[in-house]
């Protein structure tokens, strides 16, 4: 049954109908994660000709309680990434883990709650399953990196044309990737050099040192 997407443009269109690959499982295993201090700091990023400001910092101790016991074992290697507007106001935050998969590096973004989100009714929140958004990261130098997103449309086409067998669910005509981490990594490695699989989306340059 189709969902009523058009009933509220503020909500569902943002959640599902975006071109980015989103997965129920993370793209990394615990052993894949490591910390790179180069990322710490503020960055000015260009996305689709729009300027965005993001900040990477280590996950503060008081935010680690939002994570499970298992993921907390590696939380010292993770980042709390804030997305900000040009005035410095935080728009949203994610827990981010840097992982090496195959020969490339990837960032896995997982929603973290802002104080304003904490006041939302918990039953309402329980109906939004937090999922992982993944980007390949290419470090240019200590002050520049690019992020290439795994293109959801590319994967959708592979699945629709039976060119790939990856676990997924079809919800209202949209493909939801439910493949476990190992299966995701096989896909990532297989298509890591395919320019159609990874779309350059964001160019970041350091805007301030810490």
């Amino acid at each position, binding site marked *: 049954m189709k969902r009523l997407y058009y009933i509220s443009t503020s909500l569902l269109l943002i*959640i599902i109908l975006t071109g980015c690959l*989103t997965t129920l499982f993370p793209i990394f295993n615990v052993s894949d994660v490591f910390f790179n201090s180069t990322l710490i700091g503020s960055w000015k990023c260009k996305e689709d000709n729009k300027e965005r400001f993001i900040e990477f910092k280590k996950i503060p101790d008081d935010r680690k309680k939002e994570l*499970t016991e*298992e993921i907390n074992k590696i939380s010292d290697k993770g980042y709390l990434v804030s997305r900000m507007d040009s005035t410095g106001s935080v728009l949203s935050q994610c827990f981010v883990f840097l992982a090496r998969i195959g020969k490339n590096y990837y960032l896995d973004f997982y929603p973290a709650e802002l104080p304003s989100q904490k006041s939302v009714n*918990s039953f309402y929140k*329980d109906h939004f399953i937090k999922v992982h958004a993944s980007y390949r990261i290419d470090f240019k130098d200590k002050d520049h990196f690019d992020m290439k997103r795994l293109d959801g449309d590319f994967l959708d086409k592979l699945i629709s044309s039976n060119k790939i067998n990856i676990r997924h669910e079809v919800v209202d005509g949209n493909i939801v990737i439910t493949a476990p981490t190992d299966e995701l990594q096989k896909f990532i490695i297989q298509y890591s050099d395919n320019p159609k699989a990874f779309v350059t989306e964001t160019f970041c340059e350091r805007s301030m040192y810490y």
Partner: protein
Amino acid sequence: MRAFFFAGVLLLLTLSSCVTTLQSLLTQDNIVTDDRVAGQWVSNDSKSFLVQKIMDSKFKPTIEELDRHDYTKADSLFFTKLYAISFRENNLDYVWLCGLVRIKDQYYLNFEPRECLNDLKKESYTLEGQKFFTTFTIAKLEWKVNNGLSLHFLNGDRIKKIILNGNARISHEYDPLFDTFVITASSKELEQFLEKYGNNESLYDGGLTLNFVRKK
């Protein structure tokens, strides 16, 4: 006679964890309506809820314009059978969509979150740069005398344990690293699950029961 109720949803939560479904229980074949549903209702903690047929709600224009998008007439007809539930809590305005299903003489309500707007009419939970999947919840409906209604929600912790122990077979996904659990069964499988276990009281024990009365 308009005696029905639901909503109170907000209380739920902290009492027992919630198990949600990726697919809706509702289909064009099983959705039903009941005139008793719509109205103003009060929960057992005195909170007020407005339940409207969707065509009596602010969403009516949207439903009427669906044919401009990729929806069939059957889709449109399906959506007209939904209800919109509105309530306000902590300066946030919530709207849920809800549909009614009857399985073996038992009514179930399928809940879907729709909006959580602040006073600036901006969505307050799903923010730019974060990714979520929206999911559904199912509650068993018990009609009460004197314009009352109870909603019985499955005990999420128990359901999760039963499924992960392999004692109930229903499609699901579980990531222990981030403790993500969601039932991925199809609408048909959900219906079959409720046919088989819907009246098993032990699945509701420890889960939340909400009581509502129609506002005079």
